[in-house]
């Protein structure tokens, strides 16, 4: 049987990748990176790196980068909450997760943005859990009804309770790591078991150009030691915080991520790291950071190629839109991004649900984007040979009346060859009219209603108690005596 060709698209030639890497290595050695974290600086010194103290500038020799590259794993495993389902991050595997940390939510009723509440966060998590083409959940919205200071641990607290999917998340403060780690350990039972079966990925963004802040470097170190995969989210903005040319930005992007990789490997050799990012083609008219720009997608796809060249798993913020509502722009940008990301072989694709430059989540968009993800995933499965003889035998008894509907062959394969979207409109015109001429966002809203009607699958009460204990301790430390009541339960 002929195996399906994995469709791929590449933007860089082998020699172009080498040129980018050469400049990047030279950049790290000659100009260095700024590291604002004491512990990280100490690790660099111990590894023999030259450090220029006043501005905490670390010069990284190629050998140090090579050593880090040789200890970093090329694939990472992630497990769901029960520890049963395994997800491989690496190779040509593709997993989608919703865009994270939105500060607002698009209200479907009013079609305007508002601050999300805990109730929205729970809905968001439950809907993500039901999306068949979205493998991971992300701590997607920030609840405005808990103090912002515990926003990072609280969103994980909710995520772990209402979805069994692995989580992509991150810290907002150095102290955020501890409670978040404690919760993950509570789910697994012990620190060792969490290392064996990681449940979460922590995102950490260097500050362009060429800086690892105290918070993010600490997140790398803490995660590495705890065996939690770190996703390095370099995010140059062309012409604003990174060179304006796409190739120039790729040099900086790679340098920032490799510096992060070295920190992780120095903290714990062999620790899991994902080469990710959220760069953007900075809009010179508006001063905005469009995620739906084709150049943004090109930078993402190209650094993914570099990650693959370096044998590292890749991540990107793709499949999201800068539109403010669920309109054509939202669909076209998300569709284009998701398809290109899948073709480029990005292993973790963060984006579904997001609007307005990574700042707004829409539950309806999440449900719409799920369909996009389904199509992108179908696309990369390619065309396989299903039968020894492809079609010839089906024509043996052909007559002018022949149809294929009743053929066993059709019955056998149709569900594997074709996917059936839930809310994409394929009705006849009259049927569509009869159902009230609904737009895709309206149909998404109906699906959401149905999902939320289902009973909540609660976690084990002991575990719930443990999680609550961790959360309450963190809340109390920050002056909060109770957590918001979730009405829908």
């Amino acid at each position: 049987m002929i195996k399906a060709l994995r469709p791929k698209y590449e933007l860089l030639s082998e020699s172009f990748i080498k040129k980018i890497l050469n400049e990047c290595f030279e950049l790290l050695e000659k100009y260095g990176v700024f590291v604002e974290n004491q512990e990280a600086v100490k690790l660099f010194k111990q590894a023999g790196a030259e450090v220029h103290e006043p501005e905490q500038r670390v010069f990284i020799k190629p050998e140090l980068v090579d050593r880090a590259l040789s200890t970093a794993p090329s694939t990472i495993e992630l497990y769901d909450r029960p520890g049963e389902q395994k997800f491989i991050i690496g190779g040509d595997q593709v997993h989608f997760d919703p865009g994270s940390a939105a500060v607002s939510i698009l209200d479907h009723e009013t079609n305007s943005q508002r601050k999300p509440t805990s109730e929205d966060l729970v809905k968001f998590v439950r809907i993500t859990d039901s999306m068949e083409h979205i493998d991971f959940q992300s701590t997607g919205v920030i609840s405005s009804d808990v103090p912002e200071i515990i926003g990072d641990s609280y969103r994980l607290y909710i995520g772990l309770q209402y979805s069994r999917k692995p989580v992509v998340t991150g810290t907002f403060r150095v102290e955020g790591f501890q409670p978040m780690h404690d919760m993950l350990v509570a789910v697994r039972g012990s620190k060792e078991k969490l290392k064996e079966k990681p449940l979460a990925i922590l995102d950490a963004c260097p500050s362009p150009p060429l800086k690892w802040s105290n918070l993010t470097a600490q997140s790398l170190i803490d995660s590495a030691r705890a065996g939690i995969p770190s996703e390095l989210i370099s995010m140059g903005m062309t012409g604003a915080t990174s060179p304006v040319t796409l190739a120039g930005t790729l040099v900086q992007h790679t340098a920032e991520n490799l510096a992060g990789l070295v920190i992780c490997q120095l903290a714990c050799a062999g620790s899991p790291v994902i080469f990710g990012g959220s760069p953007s083609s900075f809009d010179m008219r508006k001063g905005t950071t469009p995620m739906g720009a084709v150049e943004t997608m090109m930078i993402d796809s190209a650094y993914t190629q570099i990650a693959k060249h370096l044998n590292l798993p890749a991540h990107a913020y793709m499949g999201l839109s800068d539109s403010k509502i669920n309109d054509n722009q939202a669909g076209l940008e998300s569709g284009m991004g998701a398809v290109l990301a899948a073709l480029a072989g990005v292993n973790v694709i963060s984006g579904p649900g997001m609007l307005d430059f990574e700042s707004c989540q829409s539950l309806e968009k999440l449900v719409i984007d799920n369909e996009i993800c389904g199509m992108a995933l179908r696309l990369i499965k390619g065309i396989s040979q299903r039968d020894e003889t492809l079609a010839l035998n089906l024509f043996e008894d052909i007559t002018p009346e022949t149809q294929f509907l009743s053929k066993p062959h059709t019955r056998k394969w149709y569900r594997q060859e074709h996917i059936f979207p839930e809310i994409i409109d394929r009705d006849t015109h009259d049927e569509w009219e009869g159902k009230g001429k609904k737009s895709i966002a309206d149909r998404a809203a109906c699906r959401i209603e149905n999902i939320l009607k289902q009973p909540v699958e609660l976690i084990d009460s002991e575990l719930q108690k443990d999680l609550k204990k961790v959360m309450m301790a963190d809340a109390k430390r920050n002056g909060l005596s109770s957590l918001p009541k979730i009405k829908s339960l």
Partner: protein
Amino acid sequence: MIEKNRLSQMKQAIVKGDKEKAQKLARQAVEDDLNLNDVIEEGFVPGIQEAGNLWEKGEYFLPELITSAESMKAVMSLFQPELEKKNLKAKSLGTVIIGTIEGDIHDIGKNLVASLLSANGFDVKDLGADVKISEFIQKAENEEADFICVSSLLTTTMLKQKDMIKMLKSKNLYGKFKVLVGGAPVNKKWAQDIGADGYAENAMSAAKLAKTLAQK
């Protein structure tokens, strides 16, 4: 009277963002002992105004606007010591203390706002990023500032804008400075709720807002 041709060269240097040329013209003006306030008002300011117009019309993008603003800044810093020597003050729409609040390192938006304010005739003291509330206030007192501009890009650090207003109140300084707030999670309602004097969603409207408030 300053030659028309000379003034228009000054204007052009700023519009084009030709920093060297602008500085050269400024130096010549000092050497020839021209009235510096006239030079600024009639020569250079029209240049930055024109750059702003071109930006609003969509002809200029940020790189052009910012190079014009930077050229303007360079000229002003060259004139500063000269004006002081003569005990003159550059005509300013007001003194602005600006920074990104503590715990927050997002500074691109703040830098744009600072550039445009300064290009539009404000005397801008940029404290950088991750700036303590007390530092904002202390600096504002020392400089007898008219405005405090606070940028916050995180929902966590946005709260500090509220704390700043509280601190101003507790020090009996509320109302003494006009407080402008901005950054991605901030909106008009938040500004009103915490009792700030204004909010703007981008650098150009921030400059406009400050100008309107300065005239009050």
